[in-house]
């Protein structure tokens, strides 16, 4: 293929989708390469008798378990938290649970306010309009009026039902005098822009055949493609190419047969997530850029942030039907979100109420359960199945220079491109935050009437938020991209995924990375000359 695009986007997930949507509708010729494929509604297995079996096999969110041909392995032996992601049109939103809280204004100012990490090179108010745009596109469900967050427009659809378990937890938060609110969620409770409403089926992470969940293939790509954007699936990008002047010229990629192609473009934008993007940059090393592209700061791959997640599971004597309803979209508490010096750690955490799971996943231990094999199995299964509600404690993960992504020397994808290797550990701040969060999560479970509370200090299978590995900033010595996501070293190379995050905040990142991508697109449209975008 010898095609020249105005803009070549790598990765068809939410940020690549939103970015392409904005540009294509402005008349820009956009080509997007994704190593995965399209997933049609009929491909989702939740209407099949073996649907839970698929959850632990080809619909497993961990690529090292799923092992589809389009997946690349991740070397995770030096990380207690394992990677969860999906390759394909829609990216990881195919498997996300769609809880969509925003960053707080304070999240952009953590150095100034709390003396830790770094401030972002932008403020909340600069992103607010983009958050609102995302909300309208996805049909954000929820309620305005949350006292823990700045005011925002009325939500597009009402919150999803809480179910008995969620209502018990809400009343418990009230009795403790702690904040709670229906979390903003990208799942519609009523029909919206041609999409069907959620029917409370439960396993959102297995894909939504109704289109009620706002995965990027449903929200951004149909309009982007209608406006002329083109997606090439089965295109595994191996490296970004540069010319003698150090400008990006396109990307090399393998098709499913192993044939290599080069797509040329005036601007190249990476949207391949916090592992995939540094992997491509590091794999693209040249004589001119021996440490990888855009890496004069040495920060490509550094400062990996993952959000440690602890869990307290309330076990109720009564069956509260917790296998019904969107499994991770219910209510949240930000009572302990902001820094309080008396707690002994900086920043804070979100408590997110989640539901139970189906029979097989429950029997296997779910998030946090202890069901023995052998004689006690059935009795314990009956005690827990449908009787549990989990409070997940999602901790802000401060950037640490030593937490990083490098190229693996022992794993590669089927084309020989080295896998990303995660090197990650919890710092003392996270340890203290986990302890604090877990104690409070246990307290609210007991207040809700739990007969028993099961505690897990961290969930290994929780590496769904991949952030920080190509941070943005104003200083080229201390950041990979400028404040709009374009690389200091290579101005026509952009990054629009969670890699650019300066800090992680204590919330799910998708609304923020999508809003940032839209902002980057507007910057490209209005402040760059697409004929000579390096100027």
């Amino acid at each position: 293929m010898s095609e020249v695009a105005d803009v070549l986007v790598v990765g068809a997930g939410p940020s690549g989708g939103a970015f392409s949507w904005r540009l294509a509708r402005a008349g820009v010729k956009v080509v997007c390469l994704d190593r995965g494929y399209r997933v049609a509604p009929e491909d989702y297995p939740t209407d099949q008798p073996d649907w839970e079996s698929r959850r632990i096999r080809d619909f497993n969110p961990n690529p090292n378990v799923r092992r589809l041909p389009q997946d690349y392995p991740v070397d995770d032996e030096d990380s207690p938290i394992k990677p969860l992601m999906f390759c394909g049109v829609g990216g990881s939103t195919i498997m996300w649970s769609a809880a969509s809280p925003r960053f707080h204004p304070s999240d952009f100012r953590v150095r100034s306010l709390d003396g830790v990490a770094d401030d972002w090179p932008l403020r909340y108010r600069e992103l607010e309009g983009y958050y609102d745009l995302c909300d309208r596109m996805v049909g954000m469900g929820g309620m305005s009026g949350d006292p823990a967050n700045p005011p925002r427009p009325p939500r597009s659809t009402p919150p999803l039902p809480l179910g008995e378990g969620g209502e018990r937890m809400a009343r418990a938060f009230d009795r403790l005098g702690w904040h709670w609110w229906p979390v903003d969620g990208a799942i519609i409770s009523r029909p919206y822009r041609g999409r069907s409403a959620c029917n409370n089926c439960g396993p959102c992470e297995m894909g939504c055949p109704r289109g009620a969940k706002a995965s990027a293939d449903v929200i951004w790509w149909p309009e982007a493609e209608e406006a002329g954007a083109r997606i090439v699936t089965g295109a595994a990008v191996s490296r970004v190419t540069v010319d003698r002047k150090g400008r990006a010229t396109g990307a090399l990629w393998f098709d499913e047969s192993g044939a290599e192609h080069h797509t040329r473009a005036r601007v190249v934008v990476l949207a391949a997530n916090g592992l995939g993007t540094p992997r491509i940059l590091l794999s693209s090393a040249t004589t001119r850029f021996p440490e990888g592209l855009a890496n004069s700061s040495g920060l490509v791959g550094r400062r990996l942030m993952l959000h440690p997640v602890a869990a307290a599971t309330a076990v109720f004597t009564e069956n509260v039907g917790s296998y019904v309803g969107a499994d991770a979209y219910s209510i949240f508490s930000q009572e302990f979100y902001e820094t309080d010096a008396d707690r002994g750690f900086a920043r804070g955490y979100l408590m997110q109420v989640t539901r139970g799971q189906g029979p097989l996943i429950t029997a296997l231990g779910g998030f946090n359960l202890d069901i023995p094999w052998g004689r006690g199995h059935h009795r314990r299964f009956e005690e827990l199945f449908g009787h549990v509600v989990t409070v997940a404690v999602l901790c802000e993960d401060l950037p640490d220079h030593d937490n990083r992504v490098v190229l693996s020397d022992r794993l590669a994808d089927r084309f020989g491109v080295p896998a990303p290797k995660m090197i990650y550990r919890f710092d003392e701040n996270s340890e203290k935050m986990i302890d604090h969060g877990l104690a409070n999560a246990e307290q609210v479970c007991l207040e809700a009437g739990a007969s028993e509370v099961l505690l897990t200090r961290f969930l290994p299978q929780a590496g769904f938020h991949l952030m920080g590995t190509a941070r943005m900033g104003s200083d080229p010595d201390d950041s990979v991209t400028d404040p709009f996501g374009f690389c200091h070293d290579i101005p026509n190379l952009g990054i629009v995924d969670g890699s650019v995050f300066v800090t992680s905040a204590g919330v799910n990142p998708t609304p923020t990375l999508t809003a940032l991508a839209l902002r980057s697109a507007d910057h490209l449209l209005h402040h760059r000359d697409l004929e000579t975008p390096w100027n």
Partner: protein
Amino acid sequence: MELTNAQRLKLNAALDTLLPGDEWWPAAGGLGLVDRVLELAGLDPSHPGMVAEACSALPADFHQQDSDARTAVLERLEAGNSALFGVLQLLAYNAYYTDARVLDVVESRTGYEARPPQPRGYVLEPFDESLLEKVRTRAPFWRRV
């Protein structure tokens, strides 16, 4: 995946030990799930040959031992080779909890409908705004910066 008759007997006994029957629940081995376990193992490229390896790790007379002895054998396997035991357990549970006969028991014992979640979904009462009555009275407390 092919197993010898001896391996099949041992696998069946292992299924019965992991998921024994009681007054309400059928034993996994009694449901004849050996072939389903092998089918599931064949669908998963991450553990080729591990079922046969697990069977080989069990004593020759495993299927003739009483329940306590078999339990002790599996406990030793779990402690000594957790990866191998984990695969065996995963496949056993996978076969058991996706079997229609077991799902009928799940329904009768818990009320969970023995059907896939889609396309019917489930009916829940809409979100009750009155729940927010107390928290709505709270003054905004996000940090203004």
